[in-house]
């Protein structure tokens, strides 16, 4: 016959490995004849379960009896911790969404048609919905043309998120254009030499993969509080 402690260990092992609650009958069935006291196997299991339950007082989990049997369960009060663990990093916003947002910021008030005309592809309703839900754009009116398309503009929340006091603080298009178009940038000798020296540097320091991000921050004065 097994000792009380051995029964407890076996039950703990089984219940923590099981993916669903295990009934008392099934628990009894796991033991061989002779493992449990002959007259009262059920009583022995119950006593062991009660002992396990008692030992878990003050711990982050408990032994719980539900309709179909017993299971270990994380205490409800621990829910915030588990929730944090299960949170997954959200994916990045798509290129299409970023372009749509940029166009609304620079071309507002703008309709979906305006955005599509520039981007050359249709704007998915999902993108507009995401931007609206995020509170970065809002409906500001309708254009008085057939179909009365909705006009969108950026919101206060958009400015707050990007730490801007007003849209004025966004860099002008001429500067942004210089970022990717080398011909436009040619006029500016300083930028040219600056980026040359930099690319030479980055090769050595093995941070070349940041290249796409680096020149931007250095070439374009990112919005700062007005002087």
């Amino acid at each position: 016959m097994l000792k009380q402690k051995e029964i407890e260990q076996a039950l703990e092992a089984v219940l923590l490995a099981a993916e669903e609650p295990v009934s008392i009958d099934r628990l009894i069935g796991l033991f061989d004849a002779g493992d449990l006291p002959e007259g009262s196997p059920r009583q022995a299991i119950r006593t062991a379960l009660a002992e396990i339950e008692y030992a878990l007082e003050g711990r982050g989990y408990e032994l719980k009896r539900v309709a179909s049997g017993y299971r270990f369960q994380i205490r409800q009060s621990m829910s915030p911790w588990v929730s944090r663990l299960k949170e997954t990093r959200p994916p990045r916003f798509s290129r299409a969404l970023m372009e749509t947002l940029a166009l609304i910021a620079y071309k507002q008030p703008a309709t979906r048609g305006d955005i599509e005309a520039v981007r050359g592809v249709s704007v998915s309703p999902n993108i507009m919905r995401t931007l609206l839900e995020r509170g970065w754009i809002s409906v500001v009116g309708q254009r008085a043309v057939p179909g009365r398309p909705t006009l969108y503009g950026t919101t206060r929340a958009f400015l707050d998120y990007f730490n801007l006091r007003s849209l004025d603080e966004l860099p002008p298009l001429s500067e942004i254009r210089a970022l990717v178009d080398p011909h436009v940038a040619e006029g500016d000798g300083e930028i040219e030499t600056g980026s040359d020296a930099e690319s030479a540097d980055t090769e050595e320091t093995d941070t070349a993969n940041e290249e796409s991000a680096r020149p931007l921050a250095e070439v374009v004065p990112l919005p700062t509080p007005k002087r």
Partner: protein
Amino acid sequence: MNDGEREGARLQDARKAGNEENVVAIVGDTIIKSLPTDLYIPPDALEVFLGAFEGPMDLLLYLIRRRNLDILEISVSEVTDQYMRYIEMMTAMKLTLAGEYLAMAATLAEIKSRLLLPRTEAVEEEEEDPRAELVRRLREYERFKAAAADLEALPRLERDIQPAAAALPTLIERKIEPMVEMKDLLLAMADILHRAALNERHAVAMETLSVRERMSLVLTAVNSRRGFVPFTDLFDVEEGKQGVIVTFLALMELSREGVIEIVQRGFRAPIYVRAGT
């Protein structure tokens, strides 16, 4: 051990009998030189037998270890003979034989022939023992065979260890939004401009940002109230001259686009603004 000795003795006999290449099996004292047509071993069994080996190294190692021989003490000649017998049996029974088995047979045959060649002492000093490379390979294989067995014996998940898990409490849903940086936004805009530059039809020309922004604000103000909004309500004097001009330009642009209507009932009457109809 007894088995091994007996095997050895039989092989000795076989060798004495000469023409050992043709020896297929030795039953008692009888040397069988050709396969009987009614061979008792079913081909399946032989296939299973060979399938139990992880290749020629494994088979070779088995032949050596079966006789409890140290790898260093192997008689290449004996082992080669045994190995050849297996290979011949396989080919005779037309079983598909991995190329590696045949390659090993060739290696063994070569070593054996080199050992049989009479050599002068001078040559012996220069030349490596032809067995050395084979012995080295066998030993290394044996090492990793043992390592694989050790690995197999380690306690492992699913078989010996189960992760412990408990049922989850009701979770608190918290939506986390993706992070966006200003540079992402600007890079997106830069891309648009770059593409637009390549396609003249999509050229992007825009007013100053302050006007565009104000257009949105004015529109929102107009739309938030049903009907007419007094023109003057849309201006904030505290913004100063600059702000008034920006608002004025925004109103003009919105009116031009037909988004709003500006009405005045008579000369000097109050001006009203309402959403375009």
